[in-house]
């Protein structure tokens, strides 16, 4: 299997999946809910105007929390639906490797999340009209958001491959994402401290999406952050492929 063929297969799967979002109400409901919530959180809870600062901090702060349940909602159908309807048998008997299919579907979900984020551009215009924000920080924050979304989607893809039930996929993925988000908080660390050594608790803390997200939002995308999210995505996509291979016949 050459790289070109693999790329071409990923593209075919990606296109079908991406356009598939728009063939059902999923896309429109998702976009409407995301934009409404992102706006509401920024202005009401984030006190965008009260802060009286020309930045989008109040906007980005809530992204990990918003994504916590929106990304599992986007990812839940990726594999659970294929397994439930039996189309997985069709898909996996086509001359396409499981890996190509996993990557194609993940990229479709990720690009869709990117579209949703891109539709928040009026925020950027607004803040630039009201004052002169540091647009470098805003760009870095967007990149951080995209990476967090990718991490959640990879986790969601993995959980979706484990079950035939989309609701179960959604709830479990949201729970797992919650643990990853709050990895650095006392809530999660306290739990791990009860049975892990301090060194391992440090490792758990370093898996916190929130810590990495907040680092990047300061305006510097560190190599470590990119490697972190890249690894999370790669590991969970590999796990997706392995689980699919094991459970496809069930």
């Amino acid at each position, binding site marked *: 299997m050459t790289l070109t063929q693999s790329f071409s297969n990923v593209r*075919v799967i990606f296109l079908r999946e991406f356009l598939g979002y728009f063939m*059902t109400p999923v896309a429109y409901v998702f976009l409407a809910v995301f934009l409404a919530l992102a706006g509401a959180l920024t202005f009401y809870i984030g006190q965008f105007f009260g802060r009286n600062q020309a930045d989008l901090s109040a906007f980005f702060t809530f992204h990990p929390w918003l994504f916590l349940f929106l990304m599992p909602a986007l990812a839940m159908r990726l594999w659970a639906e294929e397994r439930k309807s039996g*189309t997985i048998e069709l898909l996996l*008997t086509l*001359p396409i490797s499981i890996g190509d299919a996993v990557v194609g579907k993940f990229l479709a979900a990720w690009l869709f999340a990117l579209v949703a984020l891109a539709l928040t551009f009026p925020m950027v215009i607004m803040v630039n009209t009201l004052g002169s924000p540091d647009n470098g920080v805003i760009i870095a924050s967007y990149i951080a958001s995209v990476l967090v979304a990718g991490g959640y989607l990879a986790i969601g893809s993995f959980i979706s491959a484990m079950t035939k039930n989309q609701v179960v996929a959604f709830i479990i993925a949201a729970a797992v994402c919650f643990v990853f988000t709050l990895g650095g908080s006392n809530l999660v660390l306290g739990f791990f401290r009860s049975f892990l050594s301090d060194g391992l608790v440090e490792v758990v803390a370093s898996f916190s999406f929130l810590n990495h997200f907040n680092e990047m939002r300061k305006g510097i995308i560190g190599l470590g952050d990119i490697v972190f999210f890249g690894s999370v995505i790669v590991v969970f996509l590999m796990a997706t492929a392995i689980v699919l291979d094991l459970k*496809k016949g069930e």
Partner: protein
Amino acid sequence: MISVQALTKTFGPIQAVRQISFSVSKGEVLGFLGPNGAGKSTTMKMITGFLTPTSGTAVVCGCDIQRSPIMAKRHIGYLPEGAPLYTDMSARGFLRFAAATRGLRGTARQKAVDRAVELAQLQSVIDQPIETLSKGFTRRVGLAQALIHDPDVLILDEPTDGLDPNQKHDVRKIITDMAPEKAIIISTHILEEVEAVCSRALIIAQGEVVADGTPEALMEKSSEHNAVSVRFASTIPATARDELLALPAVEAADIRDVQPHPYILVHPTDGAPIAEAVGELVREKKWNLVEFGTERGNLEEVFRTLTNPPKDDVA
């Protein structure tokens, strides 16, 4: 073109498929027969690379499905049981996707879709979402998908299951029309289908091959093979049965007293041809008949005997 080598699949303690071997060459339509749960679908899923066999393998057009799955899958068109499809897509969109996964692009893809639509007669529903289509059309979309790349090998799992007689006829016609160019395996539990489309039948029961041959050869195993039915115009002469039994090589003669034309079914010993002798007797006695015929055999009876051994054998 298809060579199945000692395929075996175990699910926990259950042996679903045991050491099944057979091969199918170009121009053959192999009917894969067996009761529900005999292992038909499991075998097909292993040949098409969906399930990994516990042991054994299948070689399709020289490619081992275990060692080079992608190469092997390129030669196969597969219709899984129940024809699962992406139902939110239109038939056209779905076929374009299927063609793209086969590496077809641009005009080649357009040609492939047009050809498959033509073969499966989908012109009238091509732009409808698949979920709005009738069962017959849905199945034909599945078939079109399997044919999109003009594969050398077609594997169809219960292609006519749940269709009405007209739809069954249509699907069978599609299959017979392509038969000379391809190696085809179809699974079914409809026995008339085997006679209608298959050049060879393989009966499996409890995961093992119990019979392999042409439908005719299988029918020869029937106790009714070469039996002669003698149907009388009105009543059966009192001595007729005894006179028939007196003929050489006649094992039994059963009177079936159906109105208005009762008949006698004459069973030969070991399937010997007795039609001529019975015919001579009829002429000699000047019996008034409405029908005289030789039975080819009853495939259903053969199927039941092979797949459902007598109870005392099981113990």
